């Protein structure tokens, strides 16, 4: 019989596809995933940035040699350089230190150039000398002990391990990160709440069908699974749309950040792992939507006989 072949396409018992809450849910999830992706990219960038700072700072320190004061500039310079040599000689004996590099006149000029402009002769100024010290990988050093020993070698030397200014930046970045994480938590809560209420509304819309299913012997799980399946698909579709809008936005913000000179923000690049997390958001959103719908249905149906 021709008819027999056609009916194989089984229709869903709960007609959730055309229901008015579906579109709302999809738009809601799109917006949530967009906000989530953009905020998360911010958090992950800050993380990368902090990591970069830590990596570069932990492995290095700076030794400063105060300039000798003398009426004769040449003598003063010679004395300062002598102190520098003593410091370098001492630093080279420390086993945790890999490399000791005194900054050349040229390098020092470049450092002060933003403040004093071009055409400065470093020899005419009572300039401190700077020694860049690279520590061996993984080496831990007692800075106080090092500073004490160094001052014995030359009283004009002082050690700066960058911790002071870095700590302030880290605190600022941590504050930003906490703010972003709060936004993420808020987005999850609002989205789950929206799914909870749309699912309840939908249960109200389909009360008649659900009653019939119950009378036919359907368990709550049977109804909940249909909702979970549908919400997971809606969630995935909505999330993919949200992510599709979020990716160019993230690139846009990234390119704006790179235009800011100064080197701090430009270090906030997303790693491959961070992109992996952002690209997996639709699956995560779909899973949350599915679980929220499932447990909302189970909880709401408990109130029916």
């Amino acid at each position, binding site marked *: 019989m021709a*008819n027999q072949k056609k*009916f194989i396409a089984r229709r869903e*018992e709960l007609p959730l596809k055309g229901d008015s809450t579906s579109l709302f849910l999809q738009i809601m999830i799109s917006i949530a995933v967009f906000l989530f992706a953009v905020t998360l990219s911010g958090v992950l960038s800050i993380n990368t940035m902090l990591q970069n700072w830590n990596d570069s700072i932990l492995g290095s320190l700076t030794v400063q040699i105060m300039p000798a004061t003398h009426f004769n500039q040449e003598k003063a310079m010679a004395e300062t350089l002598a102190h520098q040599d003593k410091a370098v000689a001492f630093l080279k004996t420390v086993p945790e230190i890999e490399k000791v590099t005194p900054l050349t006149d040229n390098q020092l000029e470049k450092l002060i150039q933003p403040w004093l402009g071009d055409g400065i002769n470093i020899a005419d100024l009572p300039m401190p000398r700077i020694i860049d010290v690279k520590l061996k990988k993984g080496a831990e050093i007692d800075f106080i002990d090092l500073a004490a020993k160094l001052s014995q070698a030359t009283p004009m030397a002082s050690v700066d391990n960058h911790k002071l200014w870095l700590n302030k930046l880290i605190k600022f970045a941590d504050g930003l990160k906490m703010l972003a994480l709060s936004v993420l938590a808020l987005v999850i809560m609002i989205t789950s709440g929206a799914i909870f209420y749309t699912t309840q509304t939908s249960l109200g819309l389909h009360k008649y069908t659900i*009653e*019939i299913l119950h009378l*036919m*012997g*359907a368990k709550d799980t*049977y109804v909940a699974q249909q909702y979970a399946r549908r919400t997971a698909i809606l969630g995935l579709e909505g999330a993919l749309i949200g992510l599709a809008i979020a990716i160019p936005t993230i690139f846009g913000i990234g390119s704006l950040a790179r235009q800011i000179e100064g080197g701090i923000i430009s270090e906030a690049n997303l790693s491959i792992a961070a992109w992996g997390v952002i690209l997996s958001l639709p699956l995560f959103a779909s899973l949350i939507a599915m679980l929220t719908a499932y447990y909302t249905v189970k909880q709401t149906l408990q109130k029916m006989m």
Partner: protein
Amino acid sequence: MLNIDNNSGSIIDMQNVGIRYGQGPEILSDIKLSLKKGSFHFLTGKSGAGKTSLLSMMYLAQKPSRGIVSVFGKNVNFTNRDSLAMLRRKIGVVFQDFRLLDHLSAFDNVALPLRVCGMEEREVKKRVMELLQWVELDRSIQATPATLSGGEKQRVAIARAVINRPDLLLADEPTGNVDNDIAPKLMKLFVELNKLGTTVVIATHSEKLITDFAYPRLHLQNRSLKIFAPNDFTGMGGRHG
């Protein structure tokens, strides 16, 4: 000690059952009833006498306001939701208003009780086609209820009620809308099911049905239930007074 479950062999057992809606008066009071396995009863009473309320307690759509209702030996007040669902799978119901799902075809409507139980699709197809042919609806398997006549809808509703070979069949005016020639055929189906062990309760206003099929009768009047022997038409009104 409280006796939670009843294993006396009754399919349905009611003790001092009363039912009311909200704060209103009791629709049914002090109902005592025991339906043995394999019994066949008609249920009569004027409109508003509480037939549908009594049936709805039997098919576990509502709990009594007071008293004890046991279905298949389980006290419904102490049975959890999943167990109630399992009990409902043993009950077939034909509703007066059919209660078909309008967005589903006749086939899918009839298949519903089987799919809810998780039956394999091949077996579902075989059983549903067989039954739809038997109730002469095999040409309308794809039709949605909106395109079916009242009689056809009723046959779909009956097919849905019996597809799972229920242990208990409850029917509310099952032959009210069908043509005169198909009504006896449907009644024959109920009788055959009863012979195979299904307990049957049919709510009806049809004196002809009660006369043609001599089964005992549960009669609701003044909120209480009385049981009459076959062919005893007390309280029916009409020609039997």
